[in-house]
């Protein structure tokens, strides 16, 4: 499994760092542009005094900020797409002829793809957050007051370092794991049922599954919230929130295990490389 993961990791890294570099540069430029007036190097220049130049600068400033936020969205989207494409191409296109004839178990293949997605999802989240912080730091000009920044940073995360925060983090993690498997199951099923346009079939399976799950959980949620014996809005507090988080965690964990087993079964029994 380690060898498979190594190649999956390297594949994503090759494209990911380029997207990260673009995001980082846009964060720096965005931060400088959006920042305080005194940060402008053109402030004292003759050019800056003219109205036209002012307008151009103002537009450039807006554009660079918009570009940063677009780059941020683009970076996250790109990371998701590259992970999905790695799974799809490596297993269900011609590359699958090599992957599925390697002397490894199907479980190792799926596990490596899952961990690859998980690692890159976490890296992407951290990188996006750090780039956002870089942009904000430059914008607020608080690089000079870095100690103050870390104090507020510690204070902010200190709030979450308790049982409730950890429970919330665990639920987010289980949600992430389930969503990775849901996408993988959709691609596997889509690639098996379709002879052509496998990706579109996968997208269809993904949305169909999501609709079914949404309907089921909406019904369940309504049953619970309309039953006062189970749910009382008046007494809703942190303990109720914890219970809700635990329920969400358990549901995600069950769906994750179910999805994983289903995916593995399809890979073992119904592989359909054209």
């Amino acid at each position: 499994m380690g060898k498979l993961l190594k190649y999956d990791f390297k594949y994503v890294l090759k494209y990911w760092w380029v997207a990260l570099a673009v995001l980082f540069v846009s964060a720096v430029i965005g931060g400088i542009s959006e920042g305080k007036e005194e940060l402008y190097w053109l402030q004292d220049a003759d050019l800056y005094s003219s109205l036209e130049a002012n307008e151009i600068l103002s537009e450039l400033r807006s554009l660079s900020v918009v570009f940063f936020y677009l780059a941020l969205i683009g970076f996250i989207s790109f990371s998701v797409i590259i992970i999905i494409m790695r799974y799809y191409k490596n297993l269900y296109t011609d590359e699958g002829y090599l992957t599925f004839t390697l002397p490894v178990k199907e479980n190792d293949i799926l596990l490596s793809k899952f961990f690859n997605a998980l690692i890159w999802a976490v890296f992407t989240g951290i990188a996006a957050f750090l780039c956002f912080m870089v942009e904000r730091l430059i914008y607020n000009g608080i690089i000079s007051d870095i100690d103050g920044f870390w104090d507020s940073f510690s204070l902010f995360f200190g709030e979450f370092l308790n049982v409730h925060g950890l429970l919330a983090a665990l639920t987010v993690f289980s949600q992430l794991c389930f969503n990775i498997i849901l996408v993988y199951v959709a691609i596997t099923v889509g690639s098996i049922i379709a002879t052509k346009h496998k990706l579109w079939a996968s997208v269809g399976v993904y949305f169909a599954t999501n609709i079914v799950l949404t309907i089921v959980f909406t019904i369940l949620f309504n049953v619970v919230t309309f039953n006062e014996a189970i749910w009382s809005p008046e007494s809703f507090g942190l303990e109720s929130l914890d219970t809700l988080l635990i329920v969400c965690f358990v549901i995600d964990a069950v769906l994750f295990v179910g999805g994983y087993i289903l995916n593995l079964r399809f890979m073992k029994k119904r592989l359909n490389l054209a």
Partner: protein
Amino acid sequence: MAILECKSLTKVYSVKPVINGLNLSLQAGKIYGLLGPNGCGKTTLIKMIAGLLKPSSGQILVDGKPISPETKKIVAYLPERTYLTAGMRVKDLIAFFEDFYDDFDENIAHEMLANLKIDENSSLSILSKGNKEKVQLIMVMSRRAKLYLLDEPIAGVDPAGRDYILQTIIGNYNPEACVLITTHLIHDVESALDEFIFMDFGGKVLRCGNADEVRLATGKSLDELFREDYKWGSF
């Protein structure tokens, strides 16, 4: 012991059996030609042996073991299409095969690539289709496998390329191994074959035997026999 055994092997797509109750036994140290018209089930059979498809019923044994990662360790498979990851460099591919196959001989790969003047630093995406196929063949033939499965290795290749591919196969395969080549270009591979299997639609064996013996007995080449057996409208 046979290196490959197929017992009552059946593969059904929807309701149509592509292979129906096939029995086959291949011995080590021989080159077999699995010959038949397009759509007779040659590729389906190869895919099942390689572990890419599951049989509907029946059994496949490679070196006495059912298909598993253990059998994949000793089977070198060349599909009819290019399965290489485009962004990889040739040297990355060598490292990949080295990582996954204990029987991969890096030196053979280096030598064959040098003979073809293929730069190992080249990205696979910039290689021509012909060179990609050759790189793929080199990777497969650089393994010291017990069973080589070569699916249409010369289809879509010019005559000079065909000669090179056949020379590579004959010159590099492990003499104690078994090679199974599928093709419908009988004339080009005939000289390389020890044994032949004519496969009919439905995955049944129409005729099989030793290539030299059948040529001596009938006075005809395999290509001529193939044309007789598969004359238009005879099946």
